[in-house]
């Protein structure tokens, strides 16, 4: 019985104009945008490769360790084609320094992009799915029950010994099968274009991630189909159902996300929390300074200050403390770097070396200590607020779907933070490498007159996206949420439909 019903519904749906139109528009949009997005990705990848190369060359030129700027570049995520998330927005170039722990807030932007182009909104396949799939799903659903009721066929069907639950299930299954066609076809087209592009090499786990995005799309489709079915079940006329469906769509997809964020758009961060954290950080640095002064007092070199009064050629001496109130960035910058110095300063060199051997490990230690405070404070001031907004966005299925696909693609906040975690780990590696060679206490740390720094054995940085299991774990709550909404909606429809008169 169920199969007969499904077959009937399937044929009914497949032969409609809306099915053909939806398929056509979906394919057109997806193919056109995939081509554009691949182009965009290739450009970003080119920028990334150039940047990595230039930075490596620049580093080789540096003669002193203190002067060596290790720059890390974040590669563009190939799955950003599916959901760009924060991948293009957040900084992709990080300067690694021993005296501060890097976060995404210090990252700069590398790329040949014209900053004014941000005026135009970015687009990705996820957005097309969000808008078009939900619309198609509602267009399939609005007359599923109301239409049959109007035409009287519903009464006819139910005079046979068909249970209402079966009828609903048949409608659901057949409509979802129909709706899957445009999703599958457009995804396949996108994949074909992706695999033919020379710059993009998708790995096996990338296909798994795309599979995850596909599953999320089905769940999203199901939610919107069921919303339409619910509207169809509670209304008696198709025209009312249609109006209601369109306004619900407009509200959930177009109005709610924008309106919610506009009302909540308070850029104020909890000032006291930030201030107390900064205060704490400052105390730690003051403690550091006292220790430094004690060391200098105990040192026997006459007439000294922390720069040892050294003057030289082609170099600089900086001593400054800087902090940023908003991102809680703090840095004690003390750099002494010279190509050559005058003969009269030569006796100071061993003292400077000795001083560095003491000072730099202490700076690193202090920076690590301030990081512990900063990490928590940043979560409280910046991250939590952003996450609250993301959670509120999830009141619309669109927000849930967006979060799920971002998690699969690895372009959400957690995915981007993986890079910065890797960068912090790499910073530890570099520090260990320096310690092993005793680079801090070496003459080449700040002076290149006898021998230059050797960068050849420096461990290379490479960033690998986290495994697909991590993506799945991050996407799971949102996927579950979509399924749960579907289930609740289906039950609601069932209850309403069973009790309703035909």
């Amino acid at each position: 019985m169920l199969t007969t019903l499904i077959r009937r519904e399937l044929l009914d749906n497949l032969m409609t104009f809306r099915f053909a139109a939806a398929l056509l528009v979906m394919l057109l949009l997806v193919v056109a945008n995939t081509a554009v997005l691949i182009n965009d990705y290739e450009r970003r990848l080119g920028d990334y490769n150039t940047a990595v190369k230039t930075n490596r060359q620049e580093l080789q030129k540096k003669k002193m360790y203190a002067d060596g700027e290790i720059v890390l570049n974040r590669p563009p995520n190939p799955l950003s084609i599916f959901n760009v998330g924060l991948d293009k927005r957040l900084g992709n170039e990080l300067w690694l320094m021993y005296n501060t722990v890097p976060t995404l807030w210090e990252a700069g932007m590398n790329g040949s992009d014209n900053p004014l182009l941000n005026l135009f909104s970015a687009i990705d396949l996820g957005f097309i799915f969000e808008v078009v799939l939900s619309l198609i799903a509602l267009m399939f659903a609005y007359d599923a029950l109301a239409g049959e009721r109007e035409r009287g066929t519903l009464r006819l069907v139910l005079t046979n010994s068909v249970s209402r639950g079966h009828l609903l299930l048949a409608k659901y299954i057949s409509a979802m099968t129909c709706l899957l066609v445009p999703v599958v076809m457009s995804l396949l087209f996108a994949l074909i274009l992706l695999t033919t592009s020379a710059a993009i090499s998708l790995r096996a786990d990338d296909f798994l991630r795309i599979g995850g995005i596909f599953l999320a799309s089905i769940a999203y489709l199901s939610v919107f189909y069921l919303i339409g079915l619910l509207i169809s079940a509670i209304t008696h006329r198709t025209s009312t159902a249609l109006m209601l469906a369109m306004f619900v769509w407009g509200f959930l997809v177009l109005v709610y996300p924008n309106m919610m964020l506009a009302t909540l758009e308070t850029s104020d961060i909890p000032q006291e929390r930030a201030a107390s954290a900064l205060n704490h950080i400052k105390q730690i640095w003051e403690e550091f300074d006292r220790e430094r002064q004690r060391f200098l007092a105990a040192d026997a070199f006459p007439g000294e200050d922390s720069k040892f009064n050294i003057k030289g050629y082609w170099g600089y001496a900086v001593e400054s403390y800087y902090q940023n109130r908003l991102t809680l960035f703090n840095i004690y910058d003390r750099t002494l770097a010279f190509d050559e110095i005058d003969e009269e300063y030569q006796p100071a060199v061993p003292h400077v070396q000795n001083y560095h051997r003491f000072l730099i490990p202490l700076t690193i230690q202090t920076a690590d200590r301030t990081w512990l405070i900063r990490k928590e404070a940043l979560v409280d001031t910046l991250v939590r607020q952003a996450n609250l907004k993301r959670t509120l966005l999830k009141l619309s299925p669109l927000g849930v779907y967006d979060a799920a696909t971002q998690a699969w693609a690895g372009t959400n906040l957690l995915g981007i933070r993986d890079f910065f975690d890797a960068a912090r780990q790499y910073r530890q590696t570099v520090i260990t490498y320096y310690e092993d060679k005793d680079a801090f206490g070496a003459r080449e740390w700040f002076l290149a007159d006898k021998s230059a720094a050797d960068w050849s054995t420096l461990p290379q940085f490479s960033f690998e996206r986290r495994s697909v299991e991590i993506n799945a774990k991050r996407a799971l709550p949102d996927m579950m949420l979509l399924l749960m909404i579907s289930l609740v909606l289906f039950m609601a429809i069932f209850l309403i439909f069973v009790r309703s008169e035909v």
Partner: protein
Amino acid sequence: MIWHIATREIYENLNSLRFGLTLLLLLALMLTNAVTHLREHPKRMQKYHDAITNTRNALTARADNLYTLAQKGPGNFYKTPSPLHFCAEGGEAFIPDVVRGESHSWRRGALKSFWRLHYPSVRPNLANIRPEVTKVDWGFIVGYVLSLTALLFTFDAIAGERESGTLRLMLANAIPRHAVLLGKFLGALISLLIPFTLATLMNLLVISTSRSVQLTAGEWGRLGIIFIIAILYVCLFLALGLLVSARMQRSAVSLVILLLAWVTFVVFMPSTLATIVRGFSSPMSRAEFQERRGQLDTALKEQYREYIRIRNTKRYAVLQEQGAYVTKDAQQHERLNRERLAQEIQQVKEARAIIRISPVALVQHLMETFAGTGFERHLQFLENVQPYARQFREFIIENDGHDAESLHLIGVPTGMSQRKVEPAAMPRFKDTRSLNRDFNTAAVDLLLLVLLFIALMSGAYLAFVRAEI
């Protein structure tokens, strides 16, 4: 007769679900818009006032000495925030609101670099981890929400009556078809304008009762223009709805076509086209810019190597060459900055020209222009800054000319007047906007909008006249 049909339509619509829902949606959106504006606008104004006060104070401090003033320059120029920001937000977060007119501060002996204009860029998203969405401004409300409701008001205007058979009934009377079409059009327009006008009035009421936002007569005029543009835009979509509705036998089919066309043209077209067009030109990248700057510096130093280290002998010729060096240095950097800016602007202009295919881009450009926000406003601001920079330089030369003790060698401390400048005499930067210019910029967009409307309306007429009932 037309009016008769229109009133029938209006009565029918007033009782319908779509009217109620539209009213509700528009009121909610406009209220959000007003509340957000009242919250954000005073902050914006405060920031602007603080910034110009700082610049003015710095300028007064420099005026003690003509050389210092000539060397350090007029300081930063700030764009006046528009009080009509709520009409069109114009992506202002991505457009810089300042042009810097300051010294680049190199120093060789007694010589110091002179000020030049440079154009900082903004990247507000670098540290922004919050979800990003469109702002709820009138441009969004009209461009997206109102256009969608316009389609929902007309998709069944003719196809629906055809389905239910009333169209045949109506045309059996001696009613000309164009009267039916116009009646339908007017009916839909008026029943859509009622909620829109109500929502707009409420929005303006909330905004104008607040003390923090003051609107002048000119701004009310601009609001009127924006309102008319919104109506024109709505007409466009009503005509489109009638066209499709007249061609289609069933209203469901008509709606499917309309919605898919709407999604394609309104939602996706602007961003897709912009992404395609940006590939056509590539402005100077940061690395290229720095390289060229370095080359210019080296070439200039090469040319003036003899003179740029100050000599003990204060010979006139040496001073002259030094002055020329400093002036040329500032000039060529300013030219390079402007060239890069012009290339960036050109790229955006191309993209904006192409995305006009989408009517929503048209209406948003128009609203931005008349609200005094967004890209066109930025161009106007830049046009205001550049002549002022020239004026300021002329002022320095003129003032230097008045001092008989000065050698009149601009660029060298010893060659210039060291007198105090009266702060009141300095030219003042005015960030003016003129309605005439706005009309000029908007003319093409406005004409395109009207043209599109006429085309669609005549299409609807032809389709309806030739349609079988």
